[in-house]
Structures are given as structure tokens and as C-alpha cells.
């Protein structure tokens, strides 16, 4: 199986105006996304998730490293313009700010087709298809964004991304500005679209329960590095990096019976990305810290199928946390409610 997206050792530094210092936003990120797969990119704000997404869609030039889309190096984006046109798309966090307030919904959705040089009839058909795909009423084609609810606006944001029939969509926190009902609808919609079109998603979010629900695989970011990457089930049920474990322990699942057990609690604040510590970036906050961590950056270790972790003591971390299936229970419950499989109430497994 050939990957849709391969990122290899990506770095991004932002110069600080009026200073020789730089913000080290991304520090050696490597990841792959397969066709039809969702990779959840999680981490605190400031961890560099959004920067990774913007490098992929070409809004930011990386400092070093390669990004390949189906084998094409995106550094030569301009040379391969025709081949890449519309193949990688982006959905923004704020639906309200990402739509041109002066443009009608129909024009907004069909606008990405303009550079593809399609005839009018094809454009019209594709726009109608996209509208159907996100289940928006065709009456809204002549409306302006301000007449829509945020949930509808985000559907427009998804429709205009899907209209070019992309193979990869970067979803940059697409649900964090929405209320819970609209959030569930958008997630459900994204999963249906993926089933129908086999689109690969890079789903950027700090909302771990949403990520668990939609992702096949998960990459946990901390200070511009992916500290652990693996299948969503393994990473969520048995994290092997102290940071993943700590992050998971902070999740509140939307049910009082669902509790996450973790012995890992992280101390202190996230260090400044301007002066990165030597060695492991987590050393100052980690309860598992040993002397080696302070001098040496732990390399990526493969601990399972497509599961890598950057930690010298990942075995101890894994052993310290009891394997939990809380997230699996949550998944089943969420599926049940969304699928309307049973009456809304407490599932037998939760009682």
C-alpha cells in the first residue's frame, strides 16, 4: 500500500522580528497517512500541530525535511501544480472566519474548482455533489455565510474542500468552535464521507475523545515533536510515552461512569519553544525521568506494528499504567447513540 502522505524529519523555525532567536515550532516530525485512513494529530496548544498542517497544504514553507504526497515532493509544488491541483485540502477551525462574508454559499463551494479549468457544467455538477455530500439544502446556495448556523457554515467549509475530490484533507480543529450537537454531526459526516470517497484525513485536535472516535491512528505531539505514534486503540488503551499517558489522564469523557486511570501526572509548564532543553523535551516534567533523559534525545523506537515511541523507559511507562478499555467502552456508547441503535440512556456496560 503506498502512502498518501509521507513526512520525513520536518523542521520549521520562525525568526523572531528584531532578534536573532528563533521559535522552534517543528523539530523533526515524521509521519505517514495511508489512503482512506484518519491520522489524529493531538497535543496541547503551541505544540506545533497547526504548523504541520499548514506546511502540508503549502501555506508555510518548511525549514528542513521533506513532505511527499503520493511520492511527489511538495517542495516542488509549483512544478507539479497540475498534478496536485485540489488533491490536498484544508478545513479551518473557525467556520465563520474561513468563509468570505460577501460571497454566496454556491460561489464559495465552487470557487476551488476555478483553478482546475473545468467547464461550467462539470463545475455545477461537482458543486451539487458536494452540497449533497454534506447534506446541505440546495436552497442555501444563494445565501450568505451570516445567514447560516456555525454547524452549517462548517458543512460549507467541508463541502468546498471536498468539491475538488481531494485524496487528503487536513482538518485543523474543525469541531472545536462548535457546540456538542453540531460537533457530533460534523464528526459523523466526516466519517461517512471517508467511507464513501476513501479520503485520507489528518485530523488536528486537542479534543482527545473526538480524536479517539474518528482516528484510525494517532500521533501525539509535544513541543514540535511526535513523541508517540500508533494505532488509536493501542495508544489510547496502553500509552507507552509518559506524555501520552499524562495527556490521556486529563481527558473528561462525557459520561460519569467513564473514568481514566493513570499514574502519570505531569508537573510544571510546557517549556518555551525558543530555548529548547537539551535531551528529552519532557525531562523537566516527567515522573519517569532518569539522568540519561537530560542529556540525550531518545530516538524513535518501534514497539509494535506502525507504533513508535520516543522514550528510554517506554516499557516501564507501559507497565505502570493498567491497560484500560475505557475508551473502547466510550466508542461503543458513542456509536450506539449516533447510530440510534438503542434508546438513549445508560448502556448495560456502564452500569
Amino acid at each position: 500500500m503506498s502512502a498518501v502522505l509521507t513526512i520525513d524529519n520536518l523542521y520549521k523555525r520562525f525568526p523572531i522580528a528584531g532578534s536573532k532567536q528563533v521559535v522552534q515550532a517543528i523539530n523533526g516530525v515524521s509521519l505517514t497517512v495511508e489512503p482512506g485512513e484518519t491520522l489524529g494529530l493531538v497535543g496541547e496548544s503551541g505544540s506545533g500541530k497547526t504548523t504541520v498542517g499548514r506546511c502540508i497544504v503549502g501555506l508555510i514553507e518548511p525549514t528542513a525535511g521533506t513532505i511527499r504526497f503520493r511520492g511527489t515532493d511538495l517542495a516542488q509544488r509549483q512544478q507539479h501544480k497540475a498534478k496536485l491541483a485540489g488533491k490536498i485540502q484544508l478545513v479551518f477551525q473557525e467556520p465563520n472566519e474561513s468563509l468570505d462574508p460577501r460571497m454566496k454559499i454556491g460561489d464559495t463551494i465552487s470557487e476551488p474548482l476555478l483553478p482546475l479549468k473545468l467547464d461550467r457544467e462539470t463545475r455545477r455538477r461537482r458543486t451539487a455533489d458536494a452540497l449533497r455530500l454534506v447534506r446541505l439544502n440546495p436552497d442555501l446556495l444563494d445565501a450568505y455565510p451570516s445567514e447560516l448556523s456555525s454547524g452549517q457554515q462548517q458543512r460549507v467549509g467541508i463541502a468546498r474542500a471536498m468539491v475538488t475530490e481531494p485524496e487528503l484533507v487536513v482538518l485543523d480543529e474543525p469541531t472545536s468552535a462548535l457546540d456538542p450537537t453540531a460537533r457530533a454531526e460534523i464528526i459523523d459526516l466526516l466519517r461517512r464521507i471517508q467511507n464513501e470517497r476513501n479520503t485520507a484525513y489528518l485530523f488536528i485536535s486537542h479534543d482527545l475523545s473526538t480524536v479517539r472516535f474518528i482516528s484510525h491512528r494517532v500521533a501525539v505531539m509535544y513541543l514540535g515533536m511526535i513523541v508517540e505514534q500508533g494505532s488509536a486503540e493501542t495508544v489510547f488503551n496502553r500509552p507507552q510515552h509518559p506524555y501520552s499517558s499524562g495527556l490521556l489522564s486529563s481527558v473528561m469523557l462525557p459520561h460519569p461512569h467513564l473514568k481514566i486511570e493513570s499514574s502519570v501526572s505531569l508537573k510544571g509548564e510546557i517549556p518555551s519553544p525558543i530555548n529548547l532543553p537539551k535531551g528529552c523535551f519532557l525531562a523537566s516534567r516527567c515522573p519517569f525521568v532518569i539522568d540519561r533523559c537530560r542529556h540525550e534525545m531518545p530516538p524513535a523506537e518501534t514497539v509494535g506494528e506502525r507504533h513508535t515511541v520516543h522514550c528510554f523507559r517506554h516499557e516501564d511507562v507501559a507497565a505502570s499504567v493498567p491497560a484500560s478499555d475505557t475508551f473502547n467502552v466510550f466508542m461503543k456508547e458513542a456509536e450506539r447513540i449516533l447510530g440510534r441503535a438503542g434508546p438513549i440512556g445508560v448502556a448495560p456496560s456502564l452500569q
Partner: protein
Amino acid sequence: MRILAYLAKRLIFVIPQLLGIVLVSFLLVKSIPGDPAVLMLGPTATPSAIASLRQQLGLDQPLYVQFLIYVRNLLHGDLGTSWQTTRPVLEDLLQRFPATLELVTLSLLLAIVVGVTLGVYAARKPNGWVARLADLYGLSAGALPDFWFALVLIFIFYTVLGWAPAPLGRIDMIVIPPLPVTGALTIDALLAGDLQAFWSACAHLVLPVLTLGLLNAGPILKMTQATMEKMLESDFSRFEVLCGVPQNLVVRHALRNALPSIVTIISVLYGFLIGGAVLVEIVFSWGGAGQYAVQGVLNSDIYPVLGFVLFSAIFSLIVYIAVDLIYFLLDPRISN
């Protein structure tokens, strides 16, 4: 239809607005120290002559009676008489207001062309040389006094180069002015088919229009640049860029969203310049309305001042109503 309903609602408020403006300006002008009777009769006047003139002018009446008389006269189209020109204020203003309006309108058009163009180009490349030029321009335009800039232009283009006509009025003295129709000399000359008068009027307009236009392009430039930069950095512009939408289309869509702010600053400048152009009018002996009003203030000649305030107020109200109508066209959110 919605526009008409809105317009009707706006127009109802015009009458009380004007009444309020007249009341406030009447009280303010009346509070200026100085007795017109004394000024009119000169230093040799006897107290009894002054007293009788005061009575004749109604100055011995209580303030509210004076105000009511003024309003009653206004309703009959009588704006009072200027004791300096000894002519009815309405006649004076109808002659001078178009002179100012012609100057200010042309200056503003120049300012819009310079300001919006430079602002859009500066915003396209926030670190480019156009942006740096725009910063320098905005700063200089804000710092230079207009009358001083006018004098510099006169020195260069009249005194040294001899390209511009003498800064003495709106038309060459040897040219017979066209029959007044609109009051704007260029338009009247064209209506009369008098090309000599037209070119003479144009030549006299060049330097004052350059002065006011170039200096007032500053705020328009700044507003355009700031709003356009914000629009081009917004997510909807970024999305167009990553989709490969041509840059001029991205800029056009951003400009469409920036226009309401630009129109606002233009309308404010328009209203302001009617009175704010007075120093430039004086430098060029323009004989405009601002100059007329300042003479009135200096000589306790209150009716020209009140007449000017009234004219300016009506003009500003017309501009603001026009701007509101433009908002309707520009922004679908308001019309909904």
C-alpha cells in the same frame, strides 16, 4: 423596497437633526464675545447710535426670542444678511459653497485614487518597498500642514517654474467667467461651451487639488492598507491562495470586504474638508465657503457663520445618507 423604507425612516430624522444643529450653533455663535453693533459702527460711534442699532438688529431681545425669529426667517428661506458684504447670506453661500464643493470633491477623488491604489499594493506585500513607501507617505501626509504644502507647491510651480497660474482665485482675471448654473466653474464652462474658461478654471484647480488631494490621501491609504492586510491574512483569503485562485482575484475579494471601512473614512473626510479646506482656500484666494465663514467669526458677523454651519450640516447629512445607501449595496448582511 427595503432601501426605500429605510430612506424614508432616515429622512424623517433629518428635520429634528437640523433643528438641533441650528440651536447648538446659534448658542455657540452668540457666546462669542464682541458686539456686532460696535464693530459695524466703528470706534467713533456714540452710545445712543449703538443702542439704536442694537434695537434695530434685535440684539436687545432675549436670546430665545432672537432664536425664534431666526428660525422663522429660515422657514421663509431668509438666512439673514451679512453686514460685511451687505448681501443676503443665502446669495453669498450659493455662490461660494459650490466653489468649495468643486475643490473638495476633486481633491477627494485624487485622494481616493492615490490612497486606495497605494494601500492595496502595500497590503499585497507587507514587507515590500511599496509598503515602506506607504508608511513614509502616511507619516508625511499626517505631519505636513496643508497651507505650508500649498505654499511650497506655489513656490515651485508658480514662482520658479512658472507652470501654474497665479494663486489668485478660481479663474484668470482676463477670462470672463461662465454664466453660473451649478456654481462649479469647470462644469458651467463646459455647459456654456466656453473652452477658454474651462481650461483656465482647470489650471487654477491643479495646485489646490494637489495640495488637498495628496495630503488627504494619507488617512485613506492607512485605512486601506490596514483593512486589506487584515483581509488578506484572513482564513478565507488563505484558502483561496492554497487552492491556487489567481492573486488578482484574491485581492479583489479582499477589497470587496475592505470597502465598507474605506467608504467610511472617505465620507468622514468629505464632511470635514468642507470647513477644513479653509487654510488652503485662503492661500489660493479661493473665495470659498470656509473662508467666508472664518471672516464671519472674526468680525462677529453671525449670519454667515450660521448659514455656513447649516449648509455644511445639510451636506454632511446628504453624504452620510449616501454612504448608508452604499453600505446597502456593498454588504449583503445589512440589507438582510
